[in-house]
């Protein structure tokens, strides 16, 4: 390998070169670029800008609000594209209920508007413009019926218009929106004070980490002891990502990728620790779980190494609950058919295989009523990420040729 691969996370970054992988905890007093330069000056100096590849989840990812006319088509399609483009924070508004919908207080990176097949128009009216006036956002894109494009662009400043994500046959068209969102990520980095200098050390596009991980999934069963269908759980400092084989769901969508992604934005172990604990306390099985782990609920208020381990175990449990039949708000995965669970991210540096296994066994026994559990693979050396980065690089060099 002649490339230098760097992943910038919210709590630490990792660097992969031919000498191997190293990881460094973030120094929050410095901005990311300075921090990276201080800690890895040696290695950075050895690689040219063209050979350096960076992906990042440090800025928390883009926040998105999708406004669509139905749940089964507009919103479902746009959500799928957004998640698979690496977007982290997604809220949706069903257009028919826009007047009752709450207004997000924070600034949104991008608003997506979608509805209708190309031959139909007249979905949107003053209500949309009134709602948009109350929002603050950096970008706005329209991916609905071409008939409404003109009317909307006359009434919405700086509206970007892309091809409809709903085809004339009501099928999904991922192309342009997916590309737009992945590029937006790049622009977002350029604009963020904390990391904009990263382009000083690479001449390649900076992708979001989950996008890279998602791309590696079709290849991982050939390289690891991972058996399809599987899920990859990436428990990070701020969010928890889950990537899943599409045969674990039944959703009548034809997509390009074999794996879909979903994000739980409030289940991180550092930055969203409070919401994680809150979710835990509201889970009916958690007290049994704490007893099973031989701790009391006081551990949740502690700031110790032990407390962190418990918190991470809890987050595995909660994520599994959220995709099981217990919770129908998110997608329901056929967890009884799951063959492998891959754990990646910072969690693999803290928990042992036994600790992961014990919590997953508990979940399967309590919630699924099963004694056999899927095989557990700890991606403790960031192999999935490396594979994804290399994959992305090869793909690019092939298109160039």
């Amino acid at each position: 390998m002649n490339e230098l691969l760097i992943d910038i996370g919210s709590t630490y970054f990792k660097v992969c070169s031919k000498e191997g992988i190293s990881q460094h905890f973030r120094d929050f007093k410095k901005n990311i670029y300075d921090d990276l330069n201080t800690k890895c000056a040696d290695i950075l100096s050895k690689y040219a800008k063209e050979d350096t590849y960076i992906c990042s989840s440090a800025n928390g990812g883009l926040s998105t609000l999708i406004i669509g006319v139905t749940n089964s088509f507009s919103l479902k399609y746009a959500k799928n594209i957004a998640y698979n483009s690496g977007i982290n924070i997604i809220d949706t508004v069903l257009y028919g209920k826009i007047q009752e919908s709450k207004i997000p207080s924070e600034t949104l990176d991008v608003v997506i508007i979608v509805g209708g097949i190309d031959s139909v128009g007249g979905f949107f009216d003053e209500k949309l413009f009134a709602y948009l006036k109350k929002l603050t956002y950096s970008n706005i894109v329209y991916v609905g019926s071409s008939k409404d494009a003109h009317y909307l662009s006359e009434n919405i400043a700086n509206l970007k218009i892309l091809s409809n994500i709903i085809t004339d046959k009501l099928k999904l068209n991922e192309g342009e929106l997916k590309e737009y969102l992945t590029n937006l990520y790049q622009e977002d980095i350029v604009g963020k004070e904390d990391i904009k200098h990263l382009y000083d050390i690479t001449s390649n596009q900076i992708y979001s980490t989950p996008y890279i991980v998602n791309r590696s999934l079709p290849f991982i069963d050939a390289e690891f002891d991972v058996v399809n269908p599987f899920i990859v759980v990436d428990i990070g400092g701020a969010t928890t990502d889950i990537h899943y084989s599409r045969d674990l769901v039944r959703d009548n969508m034809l997509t390009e990728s074999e794996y879909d992604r979903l994000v739980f934005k409030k289940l991180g172990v550092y930055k969203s620790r409070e919401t994680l604990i809150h979710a835990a306390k509201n889970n009916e099985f958690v007290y049994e779980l704490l007893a099973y782990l031989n701790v009391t609920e006081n551990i949740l208020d502690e700031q110790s190494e032990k407390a962190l381990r418990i918190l991470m175990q809890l987050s595995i449990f909660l994520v599994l609950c959220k995709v099981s039949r217990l919770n129908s708000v998110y997608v329901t995965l056929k967890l009884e058919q799951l063959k492998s669970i891959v754990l990646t991210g910072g969690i693999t540096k803290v928990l042992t295989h036994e600790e992961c296994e014990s919590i997953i066994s508990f979940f399967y026994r309590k919630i699924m009523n099963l004694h056999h559990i899927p095989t557990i693979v700890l991606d403790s050396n960031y192999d999935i990420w490396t594979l994804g980065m290399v994959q992305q690089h090869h793909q690019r060099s092939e298109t160039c040729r």
Partner: protein
Amino acid sequence: MSLLQRERDVIVNNEYVDKFDFEEIESFIKNAPKELFISHHFKKRDRLLVQPRGGFPTYKKMFALYEEFMKADIDVLPLTVDSNTRLNDYAMSKKMLALSEENEMDMLNGYPLVTHGYRTTRKMITHFNKPVSLRHGTPDARLLVETALGSGIFEIEGGPITYMLPYSKNFPLDKAFLYWKYVDKVCAKYSQLNEPINRESFGPLTATLVPPCVVIVIQIVEMLLSLEEGVKSFSVSFSQNGSMMQDIVTSNVIKKLSRFYADKLGYSDTVINLVYHQWMGAFPRNKELSDSLINTNTVIAAMVRADKIIIKTRDEAFGIPTMQCNAQSVANTKYTLRTLKGLPVVHDEEEEANLEAEVISIMDAVLSDHADTLWRKVFNSIRSGIIDVPFSPHIINKNEVITIRDDNGNIRIIDKGKLPISDKCFAYEKSKVNLPPTQTEVINKIIHDIGAML
């Protein structure tokens, strides 16, 4: 340990399965009597093998069914699994099997093979010492096939396309390809120990006016997908079309081209067999008429010189047949075959040339897809409509091709959708049909053509 073996360990490690002893299974297969291998019988090529369908939930009733079949001098025993097992819902199979055993009532529509396990099932199969064919319909058949092979079932029907497009709306097709790769790898591995394990494709597809060129292409690509994993014995198949001439033409072309493509891709050591399915569409509700239809089918199977025939029963229109009725159907078919002598060899050069040209055009388009693996080429071809199965419920299938029967009962293409057949071939197809003047009448004719045997 190889990656495949590690995957196999994961697959057989299941809540509803007793521990697998792979070493013991290998030694069983190595020492199994040749009689159990259908590939061994195929090699003799001395008769048309007769095989029904059939499966009951309990061991006892399955055993009784096999006893009935043996009395009818059966050639190949079937093992049809229940629909819960097909969907990998072993919990439900287990529950329903228990209920069936307690109440002496069939709560499952087949034999729950995974639930019974290979140790139990093997006792029955070695007892009868006849080849057994696994009939299922499962997209992810990895555990099912491991269990079958351990049981002594050495013929596995199915494939990623033929078990998906007719049966599923949204199981991801790319995953089905991967799961069937596993099946083929395991079959190939065991094929080295004794006689080869036979893989069989399911040619009838939706059994609803599927044009022969589409059937043949799918048979060939599923065969190639198996052969590239090391399978050495493969059966292509199709079902009664509705015209004896078209059946004969289909048979001549499928035999020629499956051999051609196998050789072309470097698999000349493979044995290829032909299986003929009796009418797979709707059966008459009159049992005597059903007997007559079955008998006609047997004659055609002999005319197309198939190696195996899969038969129906006079109870077809009413659901699962009784074991006596099923065995009687075997006996009738055997009788027809015994008394049917001096069959002429028939060809129709014009029809064969046309069908051959259609198949080659589609195969060319599939093989020249830009993807780097055969399965992905096929996957892309289905997605783009180069392969299009009429009346498939699956969301990936284009459903643009429209077919109708001509005056002689031949299935003809009147809308080719994205099928890459030449203008000449398409003109030939259309020249054979006199389409009714209005669209409504065309639809009525299609409805009538689907139910041709009613």
